[in-house]
């Protein structure tokens, strides 16, 4: 049984079907005791200071032998992964490239080929993958329920973030994950509605700050939507395994994401959006389109290093929440 790392969400059912352990490399980095050390290690090896820290974290996670092989998403996510893949190959790590189709008319066929290639690379039959799909679908359904409880104010934005973000690899063991999820949902269902007056959504890549949810929720707001984390949990209910990963908005163009965000703003009655962007990430540019496309207030928060939210960002967030409160109260 090998540990198969991946750089961003991939059809994890394939890894489970191959009887290996999936490992989201982002989670290895951010949940480590000292994420800073991961960054220092990568910079000591020559990775540029002005490169996204998630990339450096992934680099160190692999170089420190957290995994045996790597699935590198070379299309549909950060283009820096191309260079990372080369570094890994150079270091003798086995790499499986995987790409999501971008701007292709026959996106479905493209993705189908990528999925079949990955099956081949991991030596697994596609029919076996579909068996795992049916099993994991039970958990995905529970995650959709968890997300609903968040909208109802029974689960905090941070709890929602943690459960959805870890569903990329189910912490390597979906049975254990499901047991813990069952326990959590049972407890949460008994909670009374803790919803606050201002309802916020987080969009963009998951934040590198470790206390931003706590800060925002301590200022009288509820986070009722985690855009990308929700996508990481693959919310599409399509029976078609390939179509499901076509419906998954994160690796495709911004317009698909905007359409999803707009629907959720209405359904979840969201008052304001926090657009989190990572320093040196190309996704920052998309902020222009996001601000133009959404008709509720959007504040853009940029983060670089792991750790607490800085005082200036706190001032901006707090003022944003105050502004929304006043608008809501008329």
């Amino acid at each position, binding site marked *: 049984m090998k540990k198969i790392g991946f750089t961003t969400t991939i059809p994890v059912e394939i890894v489970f079907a191959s009887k290996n352990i999936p490992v989201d490399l982002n989670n290895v980095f951010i949940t480590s005791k000292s994420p800073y050390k991961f960054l220092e290690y990568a910079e000591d090896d020559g990775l540029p200071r002005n490169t996204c820290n998630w990339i450096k974290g992934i680099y160190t996670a692999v170089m420190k032998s957290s995994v045996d092989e790597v699935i590198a998403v070379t299309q549909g996510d950060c283009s820096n992964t191309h260079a990372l893949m080369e570094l890994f190959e150079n270091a003798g790590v086995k790499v499986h490239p995987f790409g999501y189709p971008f701007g292709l008319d026959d996106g479905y066929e493209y993705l189908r080929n990528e999925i079949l290639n990955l099956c081949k690379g991991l030596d697994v039959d596609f029919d076996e993958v579909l068996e795992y799909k049916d099993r994991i679908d039970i958990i995905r359904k529970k995650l959709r329920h968890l997300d609903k409880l968040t909208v109802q104010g029974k689960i905090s934005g941070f709890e929602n973030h943690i459960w959805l973000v870890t569903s990329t690899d189910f912490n390597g063991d979906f049975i254990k994950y499901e047991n813990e999820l069952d326990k959590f949902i049972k407890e949460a269902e008994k909670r009374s509605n803790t919803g606050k007056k201002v309802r916020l959504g987080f969009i963009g890549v998951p934040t590198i700050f470790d206390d931003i949810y706590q800060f925002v929720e301590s200022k009288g707001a509820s986070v009722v939507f985690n855009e990308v984390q929700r996508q990481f949990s693959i919310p599409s209910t399509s029976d078609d395994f390939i179509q499901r990963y076509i419906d998954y908005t994160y690796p495709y163009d911004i317009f698909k994401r905007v359409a999803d965000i707009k629907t959720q703003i209405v359904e979840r009655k969201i008052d304001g959006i926090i657009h989190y962007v990572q320093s040196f990430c190309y996704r920052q540019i998309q902020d222009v389109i996001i601000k133009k496309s959404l008709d509720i207030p959007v504040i853009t928060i940029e983060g670089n290093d792991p750790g607490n939210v800085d005082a200036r960002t706190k*001032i901006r967030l*707090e003022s944003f929440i*105050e*502004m929304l409160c006043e608008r809501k109260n008329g």
Partner: protein
Amino acid sequence: MVDLGIDLGSRFVKVGLKSGDNIEFKLYDTVTFYRDFVKREGENIKINFDFLDTNAGRVVATGYGRNVLSFANAEIISEIKAHFKGAKVQTGCDNFTLIDLGGQDSKVIKVVNGFIEDFIMNDKCAASTGRFLENAANILKMQLSDIASSVDNPVKLNSTCAIFSESEIIGKIAEGADFRDIAAGVCESVAKRIAPLVKRLKSERYFISGGVGSIYSIRYFLEKEIGQSIEPLKNCQFNGCIGCLNY
């Protein structure tokens, strides 16, 4: 007894003292203010009102310290709220964009129908603020008042960093550029950094506040950038404390 509105800025602490209809303003160096008038009493941090001739009534404060410090004897409101309220009270307007340029902060607040519609604050760089102008004045060995009237032949400055721009200014001096032209260039570069923020929050009417807001040449270049006139608030530097006094 007086009511107090206190704006704890990074360079200056501005205090408004209100008794009846009369408001008096005082300006303190920030570090001196904290040294002389902020005291720890057990678990609490309190403002010591020894600088008053009378007793303090209601005290409302704002400023950078909001999330760092909480005073046991003052109500704290956010800077955006304070500056919005100050501008609303001072102008009597319900629809405008306020540009507040302080010691290290730049804020642009759009107000529609008497409510804050949107706002932008600088977050990573202070190259468009008072501290930047003070540094430039020190290098040029000019008074801020002389810089404030320099608008002709601005020398182009390219640096996007407050510190690197110091070496760029020295480079221009070495090239033999006129000091007043460099001063005009400094003001133009400040305006160019602020303009994109202002353009994102367009309004029919623009007001400007903060220490830097009172500088004519900054206003001159900013008006050129946005193509509209900008009206300085009457008590430019004390707008935050007026906002506090009216909360």
